[in-house]
């Protein structure tokens, strides 16, 4: 041994030579290999099928196993293990369900998709979710047309599609074909503490003038009137700006944006919405929120240091552990922006979310779809809402349930909106680059001076760049 240590090949020289030939890994690059599996289509997997019948509309093989993967996040996994799987097995006792849960969806699923060995049903969610547009483009998601046309499991006389809230199928539709079940139903609005507002005699505003007058009062009371987390939740703010733009100029404004129509972002409605919100940013935001994460800002709201927080109806459940008894979540629709708004102030943006899909190249895609049909039954939907305090896309499934105050308030806002419930936009899932750009632009608008023209121009340029990039798959909606 001593011969080695005393030789010219001592430790330092070895290290140095190693570095010189690049043996010390070039940073950041090696993790690319993590996703570079077999690039083939793996299309020769033998897929299980059975005979179609009235009782078996999707034609599954009753004895073939079904593998499902659930994201273990804010919704938990109990609804899958304790509700959906037993329900599935009640009808198909011989089909063995292989269940697993993960927080790393892309990390665990992506290599399997590329290897042609996908699970049959996948819940694509969380921070490590896969770009679903790219999955569709790569032919990895099964066409769900037959699922939506199949009769509902327990709502007689209706197809699965007919049991869902309007827009639910559309939300998972790519170029005219449905590929995803967006299972949970989220209502977006401004969240506040009902008890704090009652104590101070503050009333819910419907016009922008009332809104800013209330923000002034709140400010005078020593509370930050409005805020959101700039560090990781600027898309909450994007949602607010887009909702206001839709109120000014109808949902068509958002459709144009999704379709990358030239001038969609410099549209007058977008400009006016950005202008109104930019002013809120200049006058009523705490600048330090730019550096905070969503849980930190949400905690400040729970401590009554912040009055209004723009968010979706998952907020109440997410904060359940941090909400003191003096705090009761309530939600209001975004106020109307101008006197000539084309949608009423009660209009609400509500959207299906949380993607579940059947893999096209798994062993038993039909089994995966049958599992989805089980999830979309009324019985499963009711239990899901009870367990997760979230609404589902199964229409009316929550009716008659005793639900939490925040969700009740969201439900009320929905019924007040009537027919003026709109799905919103899809550019954030279709074009991740545009999504990133919108987050940064919203932060700039709200924290750096409220320049609405800059917001519009930046986003228009980003949209142009996506439109002319041939490597990005384009989608259309109407």
């Amino acid at each position, binding site marked *: 041994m001593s*011969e*080695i240590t005393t*030789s010219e*090949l001592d430790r*330092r*020289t070895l290290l*140095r030579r190693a*570095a*010189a030939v*690049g*043996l*010390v*890994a*070039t*940073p*950041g*690059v*090696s*993790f*690319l*290999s993590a*996703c*570079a599996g077999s*690039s*083939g*289509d793996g299309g020769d997997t033998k897929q299980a099928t059975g005979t179609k019948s009235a009782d078996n509309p999707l034609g599954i093989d009753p004895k073939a196993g079904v593998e499902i993967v659930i994201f273990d996040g804010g919704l938990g996994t109990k609804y899958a293990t304790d509700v959906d799987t037993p329900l599935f097995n009640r009808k198909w006792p011989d089909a063995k369900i292989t269940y697993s849960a993960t927080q790393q969806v*892309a990390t665990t699923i*992506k290599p399997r*998709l*590329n290897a042609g060995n996908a699970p049959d049903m996948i819940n694509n969610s969380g921070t490590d979710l*896969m*770009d679903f*547009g*790219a999955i569709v*483009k*790569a*032919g*990895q998601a099964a066409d769900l047309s037959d699922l939506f046309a199949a009769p509902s499991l327990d709502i007689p006389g209706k197809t699965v599609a007919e049991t869902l809230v309007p827009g639910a199928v559309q939300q998972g539709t790519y170029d005219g074909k449905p590929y995803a079940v967006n299972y949970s139903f989220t209502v977006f609005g401004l969240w506040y503490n009902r008890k704090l507002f009652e104590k101070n005699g503050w009333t819910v505003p419907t016009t922008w003038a009332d809104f800013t007058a209330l923000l002034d009062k709140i400010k005078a009371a020593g509370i930050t009137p409005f805020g959101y987390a*700039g*560090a*990781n939740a*600027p898309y909450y703010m994007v949602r607010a700006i887009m909702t206001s733009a839709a109120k000014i100029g109808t949902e068509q404004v958002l459709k144009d944006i999704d379709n990358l129509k030239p001038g969609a972002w410099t549209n007058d409605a977008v400009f006016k919405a950005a202008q109104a919100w930019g002013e809120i940013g200049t006058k009523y935001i*705490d*600048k*330090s*929120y*730019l*550096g*905070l994460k969503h849980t*930190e800002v949400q905690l400040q709201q729970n401590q009554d240091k912040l009055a209004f927080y723009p968010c979706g109806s998952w907020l109440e459940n997410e904060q359940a552990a941090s909400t003191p008894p003096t705090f009761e979540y309530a939600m209001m629709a975004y106020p109307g922006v101008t006197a000539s708004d084309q949608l009423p102030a009660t209009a609400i943006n509500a959207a299906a979310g949380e993607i579940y899909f059947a893999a096209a190249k798994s062993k038993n895609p039909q089994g995966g779809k049958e599992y989805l049909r089980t999830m979309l039954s009324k019985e499963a939907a009711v239990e899901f809402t009870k367990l997760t305090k979230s609404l589902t896309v199964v229409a009316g499934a929550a009716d008659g349930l005793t639900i939490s105050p925040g969700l009740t308030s969201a439900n009320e806002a929905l019924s007040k909106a009537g027919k003026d419930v709109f799905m919103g936009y899809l550019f954030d899932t279709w074009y*991740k680059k545009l999504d*990133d750009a919108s*987050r*940064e632009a919203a*932060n700039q608008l709200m*924290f750096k001076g409220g320049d609405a023209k800059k917001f519009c121009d930046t986003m228009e340029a980003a949209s142009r760049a996506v439109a002319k*990039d041939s*490597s*990005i*798959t384009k989608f259309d909606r109407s």
Partner: protein
Amino acid sequence: MRHGKYPFIIGFLVVPLALYLTFVVGAYLQMFQLSLTDWSGYGAFRYVGLDNFAKLWDDSVFWIALRHNLYILIGMPIVTIGFSLFLAFLLNVGGRSGGGGPRGVRGSKVYRIVYFFPQLLALPIVAVIFGRVFGSDRSGMINGLLPDSWSPRLFLADERWALVCIAVVLIWQQVGFYVVLFSAGMGSIGQEIYEAAALDGATKITLFFRITLPLLWDTLQVAWVYLGIAAFDLFALVNIISVNKGGPNNATQVLSYQIFLNAFQNSQAGYASAIGVVLFFLTLTFAALTLRVTRRDAAQA
């Protein structure tokens, strides 16, 4: 002479080298291949020649990221090495010289261990801790210590300072390792050299520049290459503590994070591979240049 040395070494290296070839070199080769494709990360791809590189040329964010990597490459090693050298010198030679040659300052053994602590923490943990230290409201440690009359500093949320904050974290984590590395180097410098110099009336500063630094040159070179490679990385820090994905306004964007965003968020694995290829050559060029520029006749101890 030294018969049988190489078979002995090779015997030890075969297995690691095989693993290395498969999982590192293999992955690199695949990256070179993928950089010529339009692979999204899912399913099939087609070859598009050098399109990805042409796109890089026009990508303003790529240039911003590259610039940031170069800032860190220039600034961070200088500060880290300077600071580590200073501390190591104090620990080894900086104390009062008694009869038995040079020695470290009082308690140097304890310091040596304490300085090494940050190195024991995984980088993501360090990042999470410093995310709290640099918190932009009063709950952030530094802002919590500021007088109430000051408005909270934004640190990571301030475009001018965000990258500096990240560099500070990296330096904090690295210094301990280099203190130990340089200490080991200084330990191998013969005591009699210092004694002789001290007898001739050399000051501490003279000792440092005339004896320590020249005899430590090899170690410094290694340190420089290592720190340079670390300067090209920064992924974990940026991913965990930067505001809004390398923000605000791309102020903390770096190449490794661009690779991550493009490969895993934007589904442009081919494009991300092209950035990877650029990064590979940058790092290689840097290592080669450093070794060439700093080459000098080894001072024999």
